[in-house]
Each structure stands twice: as structure tokens, then as C-alpha cells.
């Protein structure tokens, strides 16, 4: 593989064909054999590199060679192209005015190669990178330039139903690892000419293709430039998943809250595009990133827009409350039972006191114990092979909880509280927001254990200040709530029926064209006779 020097050098170059200072030994020489030999050395001579030399009869038998890396090329395209070349090689052309390398080169590019996308390179290193990309290279003896044919292909997973973000009603197709299929899925949904794809190559070793997708005229220009600026700044060995990029380009380094939304569903991505957000798609992972994003967006699942508005509103309120439950419930339980017992109604207090009669641990420790057991069970459930995974975590939780209560280690009320919290944290559609709630829960529990409700309120104040300070790509994170934007509130806690959602969310979509649907489309039943 190329020596370290190359790595340093090529890193800056990044995208092919833009090299400035080409050292002498990089340039293609007229002699075919030396080129082949140097190219082999550049690519480290793996035996999956295929080299096929041909001889053209009517161009005074000049030799030319086809090179590609087997496995990452589309076998069918290669074989048809080879067939075409072989025929062309034996055909005899009469009006070959000047035989020799240059017009053979032109002849091949114009008449005989059966591949759509062609381009040419003039250094060994560019040819090598192109071959690594999955293209095939044609070197002509005596010619200083080589033809690069885009024959990328290879085994990719078929389009399946997304595993993490399932939906009862709504499209069932999900993104795959192959960037080309993903862009085609988006193209199939949004067939508008203003849909822009801008490609980048990130990662010195992995050279992952990243596509920045937006709708011209709807997404804000500054946000797009900001995305590009931050992506270009990334200088890393390899990008295997969009998560790598997420941590590089988010606004604030240390925050439990996700500043970029990820989705596996093309319809969710297109929904974001239509609302003026930018989608970053990374090849090799079905999860694409959406920016800029606000706190409220994590409580909207794509199904809200497919179901009727009343159930959608109801579910949204449930999700919001379950977020706070999963964050606050255990700490509230600790605070009220150990600091402010007077808030409990008398009968509840007596039954709780009776339960806690034989419990050795203080409420805080008891809560910690149960929380950690539940986290362990959940992780075990995920890591288990697909079939028995969920069964283990649920059965485990019940059996363990029951046994602990019988043994008198944990009070029954605590098991209820902790299991309800665990379930509540599953309700949040976006997993990364659920994770945020789980982490903050532990901090709030400690504060509740030491200062009671005062501690919880201090923790909430810290949280509020932190949230209000957050920004996602320059847009305030608590957008519709604290910099109060009345028109956006239509789609946050409640979802007004579709015919009422005329304006795009302001301050996210560009201010030029605001309206996304015509006016006065409220369905009005024809007034049937008296």
C-alpha cells in the first residue's frame, strides 16, 4: 500500500483529479509495461487486481490494457465492455488516417467502450485511487493519459424494512448501505429539479462518499455553506458510520442531547428536506443525518403525519410526558419519600412505610441498584441474538424484581417506579433522545438523594440553561419554545390538520418562499338538504 509519504500527500488532495505538484515518477509514461508495473506497485499487487492486455489490429497492433479490482466492480458491465473491445480489436477500419496511439485513444473513447461515464487521468496515483473506487482503467501503449470507466457494483443488501424506526402506517422501505440506492430512494420520492446532491470524499483511508442533500430555494443558503465548511474540516483516517461525522460537526462538544437527528427512513429524510433541513448521507450506513434540528423534532415520529391529527396530537403529548417521566420519576420518588413525606396522601404513606419496613438500603441506593439492574438487562436484551433477546430482558426484569421484593431487598413501589421509567424511555421515537433521558436520570437521582425537591429543581435549572444555550447549526435548539415562534407551534406539541399547515417552519426554511400549500383547503361537507 502507498508509503506514508503518499498518505500525507494524498490526504490533502482528497478528491481525485485536483492534484497540483505531481512528482516526476507519478506521471504516466508512454511505455505501457512500465505504467502497468508502477500501477501494480502503487496498489500493492493484491491478486484481486485483474489486468487484461489487448492488441488492436487496425491501429498497427498497438497494445492496450484493461485493469480493475475484482469483486467491487459490476461483473456484467465489465464483460459486456470486454466483448465490445474484443470485437473492436479484430474489426478492421479503413479510414484510419493516422494510426498510432492518439487516435486509437480517441477511437476507443468515442466508438468502442460500452460504459456510460468515462473520464481520464494522467497519473498512476489517480488511476490507482479510481480502481480502488471500483472503476476500471484502460492504459494505451504510448499514450500519456488513461481512460477511467465507472463500473462500480458488487454485492449490496436489498432494500428492506427499517429495523429500528418501525411504523404501523407509512412506507416500509428503508435506506441501505449503498449510497447510490439511497440517493435513488430519495430521487424517487422527491422528483423536483431543485433537489441538489453535493458529493464529498471523507477519510484518508476509507475515502467514504458523503452526499449533502438539500432542496434549492427551500433550505437556507447559510446552513448549506455551514454544513460544507464543517464537513471539509474533517481530517480523519476512516469514516465507517454517520456517527463519526455527527460528533465532528455538531455545535457543542460536551452535551448529552443529540444535535443531529438520524433516520433510516427515506420518507422521514424527504419530510426533513421539504421543511428546509439538510440531509447528510454517508455511504456504508443506512443512517443518514438531518441538520439543523431542534429539541421538539425528536418527539415527532414520521407516523404523526400519516395518522389522523387527533391521535397524532395525543401521541405527541404522551411522548413528551414520557420523556419527562423517564427523566424525573425515580428522582421525584426518592425526593418525596425521603424528604417531603407530607406530600403523600396518608393512606399511600402508610402503605409505603409498611413496604419499606424491612428494607436495609436507603431509597437512593435502592433506586441506583434497580436502575443499574434494568440497564444491564436492557443491554443483555439488545446483545442477545435476535430471537431470544427481548424475551430475556422482559422475563429477567419481572423475575428479578419479584424475587428482590420477596427477599426484602427492594420495596415493591420502587420496582414499579423503575420499570415504569424503563418502559417510558422506550416511547421516545428517537433513540438518541431516549439515551439522553437515561443519562440525566442518574444525575437527577443523586441531586434528589442529597437535596430533595430543591436538588431536582437545581438540576432542572442547569438542564434548562444548558438546553437554551445549545445551538444546532446556528439555529437555537429550543426553537419554538423559548425564542417563541408562534407559527411553528402548530406542529410541535399539537399537530394541526394538514389543511391548516400552510407555512413552512419559519427560521428553519429559507424566508424566500414560505408557503407549502394553497389556502382554504379545509374539507367542507356539502350542506345536505334541510
Amino acid at each position, binding site marked *: 500500500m502507498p508509503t506514508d509519504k503518499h498518505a500525507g500527500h494524498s490526504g490533502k488532495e482528497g478528491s481525485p483529479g485536483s492534484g497540483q505538484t505531481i512528482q516526476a515518477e507519478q506521471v504516466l509514461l508512454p511505455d505501457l509495461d512500465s505504467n502497468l508495473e508502477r500501477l501494480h506497485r502503487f496498489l500493492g499487487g493484491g491478486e484481486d487486481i485483474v489486468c487484461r492486455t489487448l492488441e488492436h489490429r487496425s491501429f498497427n497492433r498497438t497494445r492496450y490494457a484493461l485493469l480493475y479490482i475484482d469483486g467491487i466492480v459490476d461483473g456484467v458491465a465489465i464483460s459486456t465492455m470486454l466483448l465490445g473491445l474484443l470485437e473492436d480489436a479484430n474489426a478492421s477500419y479503413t479510414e484510419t488516417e493516422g494510426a498510432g496511439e492518439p487516435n486509437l485513444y480517441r477511437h476507443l473513447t468515442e466508438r468502442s467502450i460500452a460504459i456510460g461515464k468515462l473520464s481520464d487521468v494522467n497519473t498512476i496515483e489517480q488511476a490507482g485511487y479510481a480502481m480502488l473506487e471500483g472503476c476500471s482503467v484502460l492504459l494505451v501503449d504510448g499514450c500519456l493519459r488513461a481512460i477511467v470507466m465507472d463500473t462500480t457494483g458488487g454485492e449490496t443488501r436489498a432494500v428492506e424494512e427499517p429495523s429500528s424506526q418501525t411504523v404501523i402506517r407509512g412506507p416500509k422501505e428503508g435506506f441501505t448501505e449503498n449510497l447510490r440506492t439511497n440517493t435513488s430512494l430519495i430521487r424517487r420520492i422527491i422528483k423536483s429539479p431543485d433537489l441538489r446532491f453535493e458529493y464529498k470524499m471523507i477519510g484518508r483511508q476509507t475515502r467514504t462518499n458523503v452526499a449533502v442533500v438539500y432542496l434549492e430555494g427551500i433550505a437556507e443558503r447559510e446552513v448549506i455553506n455551514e454544513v460544507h465548511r464543517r464537513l471539509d474540516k474533517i481530517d480523519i483516517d476512516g469514516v465507517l458510520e454517520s456517527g463519526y461525522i455527527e460528533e465532528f460537526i455538531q455545535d457543542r462538544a460536551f452535551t448529552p442531547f443529540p444535535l443531529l437527528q438520524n433516520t433510516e427512513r427515506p420518507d422521514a429524510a424527504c419530510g426533513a428536506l421539504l421543511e428546509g433541513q439538510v440531509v447528510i448521507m454517508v455511504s456504508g450506513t443506512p443512517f443518514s443525518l438531518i441538520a439543523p434540528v431542534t429539541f421538539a423534532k425528536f418527539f415527532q415520529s414520521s407516523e404523526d403525519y400519516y395518522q389522523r391529527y387527533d391521535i397524532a396530537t395525543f401521541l405527541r403529548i404522551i411522548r413528551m410526558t414520557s420523556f419527562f417521566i423517564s427523566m424525573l420519576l425515580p428522582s421525584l420518588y426518592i425526593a418525596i419519600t425521603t*424528604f*417531603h413525606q*407530607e*406530600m403523600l*396522601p396518608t393512606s399511600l404513606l402508610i402503605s409505603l412505610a409498611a413496604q419499606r419496613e424491612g428494607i436495609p438500603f436507603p431509597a437512593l441506593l435502592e433506586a441506583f441498584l434497580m436502575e443499574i439492574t434494568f440497564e444491564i438487562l436492557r443491554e443483555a436484551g439488545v446483545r442477545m441474538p435476535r430471537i431470544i433477546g427481548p424475551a430475556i430482558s422482559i422475563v429477567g426484569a419481572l423475575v428479578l424484581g419479584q424475587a428482590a421484593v420477596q427477599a426484602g431487598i427492594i420495596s415493591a413501589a420502587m420496582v414499579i417506579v423503575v420499570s415504569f421509567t424503563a418502559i417510558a424511555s422506550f416511547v421516545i421515537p428517537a433513540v438518541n433522545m431516549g439515551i439522553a433521558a437515561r443519562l440525566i436520570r442518574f444525575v437527577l437521582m443523586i441531586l434528589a438523594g442529597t*437535596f*430533595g*425537591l*430543591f*436538588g*431536582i*429543581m*437545581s438540576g*432542572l*435549572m*442547569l438542564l*434548562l*440553561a*444548558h438546553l*437554551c*444555550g445549545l445551538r444546532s447549526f446556528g439555529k*437555537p435548539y*429550543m426553537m419554538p*419554545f*423559548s*425564542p*417563541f415562534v408562534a407559527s411553528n407551534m402548530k406542529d410541535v406539541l399539537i399537530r394541526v390538520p394538514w389543511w391548516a399547515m400552510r407555512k413552512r417552519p419559519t427560521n428553519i426554511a429559507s424566508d424566500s418562499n414560505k408557503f407549502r400549500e394553497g389556502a382554504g383547503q379545509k374539507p367542507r361537507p356539502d350542506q345536505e338538504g334541510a
Partner: protein
Amino acid sequence: MKPAISTMQTAALVQSAITPTMVLAVPSIMISIAKQDAWISGVIALVAGMAMALGTAFICKANKGQLFVSWMESSFGKPVGIAIGLLLGIYYFNSFCIIVRSFTNFVSDIVLDQTPLYMLAGIMVAVTAFTVMQGIEALARSAFVVLILILVVVPLSVFVLYTDIDFKRLLPLFDESAARMMIASLPPVALLSEVSVLLLLTPYMKKPAAGLQAGLVGTVLGALQLLLVLLLGLTIFGQQLVPMMSYTFVNIMAIVEVGEFLERIEVFTVSVWFLTMYIKMSVFLFASVHCLVHSLRLRSERHMVFGLSVLAIVTSLTEWPRNMGGGFIFAVVNIPLLFIGNIVLPLLIALGLLITRGKRNKGGSQSS
């Protein structure tokens, strides 16, 4: 980009700079002075507060968008400007310590009586420092969210107390002499004068001209909450019993009894009240840090916040003896200090501006 806060957010900041301490200790003092006409002195305080808001906004109009200290320097010359900046910085730091101490007393009286004071003060100042470190925009946004929360919780508590209210207890109107009513309105007027914090906030506003609107809304909201607590105290407990309670608002919430389960919820209302206390502390810490950093030409505000908060914890705990009578000291003894800081100083600034404007107009071009 320069931080920009909206009018409503500034109003929330101004309101939370006034209300928390005012609603805690002031009602029982006012009622002990002016008996059942205390709510009239509350109205007087409201009117005075609006007047002060108008005055401050008028002064702020002269500011062409520069930050406060640099504005002072540009209008009165460098040495005087720095002196004013330092003076205000110290004044705000001192009132920050007073506020921290009164809230620590409140929390340890009502909720956590065995927790040592230094730990309470430590937690409070740590949270406040963290909030101020997030910058003025984050502070403004949290103030707005807390204001919304209060505007939901306060009417709810009135609705729940509806059965106990009996307006006839206010009846012998104007029973007390006008003099007593004026004296009773002194503490709230002193606290309402905190609206002068607008001087520092207007440069940060998106529309500085709307400073007047923000000031008015802030003072009116604050005074209305005071009036609400006064009326609740008078109509539920009558004017003899209230002077006996050091924290009227807490006792009012303590007698709520709706059904068998909704009883003894005053700790919940007080916890929601903690949020407004935090905003008030952050506003004062921000003000003092802002003044000191700009007058001493320091580089970063984060270090000043860290230093000041440690100093504040120490001073607030040691400056006053342990066994102080509830909020009394801070409400009454503090009045002259508040008057100097919030009324005399802005008046001097206004006077100075008038004089210098005459000179500046003559030599209009070179000095601005």
C-alpha cells in the same frame, strides 16, 4: 454574532429580577404596617414601578447600541466611565450576595432545615454560575420559559384557593392613614427599582427601542404578582394573622385542601418558585460580571464568573449573623442601598447626559 434577545425575553428578565424576593418577605411587612389597605400601597408601588420603568427606558434611548460601560466612557470620558462601571459592578455583586443569603435562609427555613448553609449556597451559586456561563441569550431564553411556567402555576393556585377567599375581609377601606400606606409601599418600590438593570440589557436587544415595552411589562408583571399575594393573604387570613407569618405565600399554599389527595402541596409550589430564584440570581451575577469585565478590560468573562461566584459564596455566608429574622432584614434594611443603586445613580447618569449632550451637540462630530 452579537447576542440578540427579544422584547418578551427582556421583559421576562426584568420581571424575574424583581419578583422573587419581593413576593417572599415584603407582603407580611406591608400588611403589618398598612393592615388591610396594604393592597392599596401595592397599587401605589405598581404605579411607581411603571414610572421608574419609563425613566430608565428614557435614559436607555440615548444609548446608541454600545455596551453600557463603553457608552458611559464615550459620554463622560474614560475615568468617569470606568468609575461608574466599577460602582455598578460592586453594587450588583453586593445585592447578589444579599439575594443568595436570603434565598439560602428561605430554603433552609422551609424545606431543608438540617442541610448546612454553605452546601445550599454552594449549589445555588454553582447553578447560577453555570447559567451565566451559557451567555445572555441562553439566560434570556430560560427566563422566558420560567415566566411561562409561573404564569401557569400562579393562576392555578388562585383557582384552587377559590373557596377560602372572602373579599369582605378587605372591607373597612382606607381605614389606615395615607402616611402608613406610603410607608408600606416603600419596600416594594425599592425592589421594583431593580428595573434599572435595563440599562445593561438594552444593548443586547434585537430592537433596543422596545426597551420601554420590556421594562413596563416586566414591572407590571412583578407588581401584579405582589398584589396577588397581598390580596390572597388579606382575603384568606385577614390582616391580624399575616404579620405572624414570615413567608406569607408559603402559608397561603399550605391551607389548600382539594379532595383527599391534593393536600399539603406548598412544597411543590415552592419548588417551582426555586426556578425564578435561580433566574434572579443569574441576572444579578451577569450584571456584576458584565460591569466588572468591561470596566477592567478583562479578556474572558468565564474566569470572572468563576472567581466572583466563589467570592459570593464566602461573603454571603459570613457577612450576616446566623440567626437573622427571615426576610425582614433584606426587605427593610436594604431599601436605602437599593435607592442609591437603582434611582440615584441612573438620575446622575441622566443629568450627566443632559449636560454633556449640550457640549456634544456643539462639538457634535468629533466626540461621538
